[in-house]
C-alpha cells in the first residue's frame, strides 16, 4: 500500500511556477516551437492530448482540469465563450496581434478576438485520383452522381456533420437546416449514394494512396500527405462550396499558470513561430509575414492555396438543437 502511494505521488508531475500545460490534438505542437518557448521564457511545457472537442469540453465543464492552454476549433470556441469557460485575455491588445491577418480578426466565434488567437486553419472538401477520374472534377457530382468507374470506390469521412453538410451543398440546402422535408431529401441522396460508397472512414490517406478509393472526402492536410506519396492525387475545391475550420489558442477559466499561458498566446502570433506550426502540422496559419519562413514547396502547395476562382471556405457555427436532432436522425437512418 505504501509503495502504491509513493508510485502515485511520483507519477504526478510537479507543479512548479514555471510550467505550462497545453491540452491539444496529438502531434499538433512542433517540438522546436516548444523548445524555443522554453528557452526564451524559462518555462517547462507539458503537452497532453485529446481525441475530440467533446472530451475537452466535458473535462473543462467538470471544473478546470488544470490545463493552461487549449486549442479549440471555431464552433467549439463560440460555445466556450457562450458558456463562460475561457479567460478573457484581450488577445487584440497583445503586441504580436498586429501580425494577425485581417481575415482572421473579426470572426464569428470571437468577434473582437478577446479570447483567442489563430493557431491553424484548413478545409474539408474532397480529393480525386486524376489518373482514374477524368474530366471536370470541380463539382460535388463526382461524389453524388459518380461515373461508373468511380462507383464502389468512394470514401466518405466518418463524421455526420461533414457528410451531411456536403450533401446539403450539393442539394442547395442551407447548413443546419431545421426543415424536416429538406433533411429528408438529404437522407434520400445519401442513401442512394451509400450503394456506391466503399467505406466511411476518416483515415483517408492510405485509401487514396493504395487506390482502394479513387474519390474521397478529405481534409486538405491529408490530401497533401496523400499527394506526397502519389502525385496524381488532387485536392478539389468544389464550386458548390466547402467547409473551413480554424483551430484557436485560448486559455481555460482558472488556468493555473495564466501569465505563462498569455505569453504562449502572444508567442504563437509571431510570424516565424506561426511558420513553425505550418511546417510541422502542414496546415495554414493566420499570421501575416509567416510565408517567408514556410518551406517553399509547402507555401506553394495547392492544398493550402485555393485557386482564385474557388469559393471562399464556409465556417459553420454549432447548429441549433432542432437542427442537430435532424442531423442525428438522418445519420442514424443512413447507418441502419
Amino acid at each position, binding site marked *: 500500500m505504501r509503495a502504491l502511494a509513493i508510485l502515485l505521488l511520483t507519477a504526478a508531475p510537479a507543479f512548479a511556477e514555471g510550467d505550462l500545460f497545453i491540452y491539444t490534438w496529438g502531434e499538433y505542437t512542433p517540438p522546436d516551437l516548444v523548445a524555443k518557448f522554453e528557452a526564451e521564457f524559462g518555462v517547462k511545457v507539458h503537452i497532453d492530448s485529446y481525441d*475530440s472537442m467533446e472530451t475537452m469540453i466535458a473535462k473543462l465543464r467538470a471544473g478546470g482540469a488544470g490545463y493552461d492552454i487549449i486549442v479549440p476549433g471555431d464552433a467549439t470556441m463560440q460555445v466556450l465563450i457562450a458558456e463562460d469557460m475561457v479567460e478573457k485575455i484581450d488577445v487584440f491588445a497583445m503586441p504580436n496581434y498586429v501580425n494577425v491577418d485581417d481575415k482572421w480578426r473579426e470572426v464569428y466565434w470571437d468577434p473582437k478576438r478577446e479570447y483567442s488567437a489563430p493557431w491553424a486553419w484548413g478545409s474539408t472538401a474532397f480529393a480525386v485520383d486524376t489518373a482514374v477520374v477524368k474530366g471536370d472534377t470541380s463539382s460535388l457530382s463526382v461524389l453524388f452522381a459518380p461515373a461508373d468507374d468511380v462507383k464502389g470506390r468512394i470514401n466518405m469521412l*466518418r463524421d455526420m456533420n461533414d457528410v451531411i453538410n456536403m450533401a446539403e451543398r450539393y442539394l442547395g440546402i442551407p447548413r443546419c437546416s431545421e426543415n424536416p422535408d429538406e433533411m429528408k431529401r438529404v437522407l434520400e441522396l445519401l442513401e442512394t449514394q451509400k450503394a456506391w460508397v466503399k467505406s466511411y472512414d476518416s483515415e483517408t490517406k*492510405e485509401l487514396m494512396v493504395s*487506390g482502394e478509393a479513387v474519390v474521397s472526402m478529405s481534409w486538405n492536410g491529408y490530401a497533401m500527405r496523400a499527394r506526397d506519396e502519389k502525385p496524381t492525387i488532387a485536392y478539389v475545391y468544389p464550386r458548390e462550396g466547402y467547409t473551413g475550420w480554424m483551430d484557436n489558442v485560448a486559455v481555460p477559466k482558472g488556468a493555473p499558470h495564466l501569465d505563462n499561458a498569455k505569453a504562449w498566446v502572444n508567442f504563437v502570433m509571431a510570424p516565424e513561430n506561426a511558420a513553425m506550426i505550418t511546417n510541422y502540422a502542414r496546415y495554414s496559419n493566420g499570421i501575416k509575414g509567416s510565408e517567408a519562413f514556410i518551406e517553399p514547396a509547402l507555401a506553394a502547395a495547392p492544398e493550402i492555396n485555393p485557386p482564385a476562382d474557388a469559393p471562399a471556405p464556409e465556417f459553420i457555427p454549432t447548429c441549433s438543437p432542432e437542427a*442537430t436532432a435532424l442531423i442525428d436522425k438522418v445519420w442514424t437512418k443512413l447507418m441502419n
Partner: protein
Amino acid sequence: MKLHRLLLAPSLGTILIFMALPIAITTLYSVLTPAQYGGVIWEPSSEAYIRLLFERDIFDDTLTFNTDYLQILGRSVLQAGVATLLCLFIGLPTAWFIATRPAGQKSLWLMLVTVPYWVNLLVRTIALLLILRDEGPINRALHAIGLTDGPLPLAYNNFAIGLGLVSSFLPFMILPLYAAIERFDFSLLEAAYDLHANRRQAFFEVVLPILRPGLIAGGLLVFIPGIGSYLAPDILGGGKTLMLGNLIGMQFQGSRNWPFGAALSTILMAVTLIALFIIARRAAREDA
C-alpha cells in the same frame, strides 16, 4: 465478523462507490432534458424513453412506431453472439491445448496469446484491414503466384468483421477456459473410458462440469463487451452501420443529447443485469 464479508468488502465497495454510484447519477440524466451544448437541464422529461420506440412527428406531434433503435440493438446483440461463438470454436481447442502442455510451457503459451494485446486495438484493427484489403499482402501474393485474377473481397464485409471480432476478444475466452481446464484431472476421463462409459456420457458427466465455470466466465467476458464494441464494423466493415456503442457515443458527442444516451445505456444495463442474475441463480443452483 465473518471472514467472507471482510474479503468481499474491498471489491464490492470499490465497484459500488466508484462505478455504481456515478452510474446511478447518469441514469437519472435519462429522465431530464438535454441542454443546448451537451449536459442536462434539471427538468424532468420522458422523451428519451419514448424515442426508443416511437418517432414524434415534427408537425402534429403524433407518435408512430419506429424500429430504428430496435434494429441497432438487434444487430449489436447478434454481433456479440457471433463473437462469442467464433471465440468459443477457436478458444476452446486452444485453451485445451495450452492446459495440456508440460508445466513450464503453459504460462509461456498464455503470454504468447496476450503479447499482441500490448498493441492498441485501434492500431491492430487498422493493420488487419491493411492486410485484408484489395491491395494488401494477401491479395497481392495470391495474384503474384497466379491463383487469382482479381482481388478476393476479403475486406469491407462480414468475413472481415468476424476476423476483427476474434482478434478483439479471443483471449477473453481462452484465459478463463484455460483456468478451468488446467485443474482437470485427466485420469478421470481415462477412468471413465476404462469403465466403458460411452463418449456422450464421458463428455456430459466428466468434461462439461469441468468446463462449465470457464464457459460461463468466457461467455460473459466476450458477449457483454461484444454488445458495445464497434471498432470491427467501423473499420473492417467500412463503417456502414451503427452499433449500440456508436449510437450511445454519438449522443454524448456530436448529437449532444445526454438524456437519450443515458436512456440507451440504462436499457442496455437493465437487460444485461437481468440476464446475469438468471445466470448467477442457475449457476448457484447447479453448484448446490
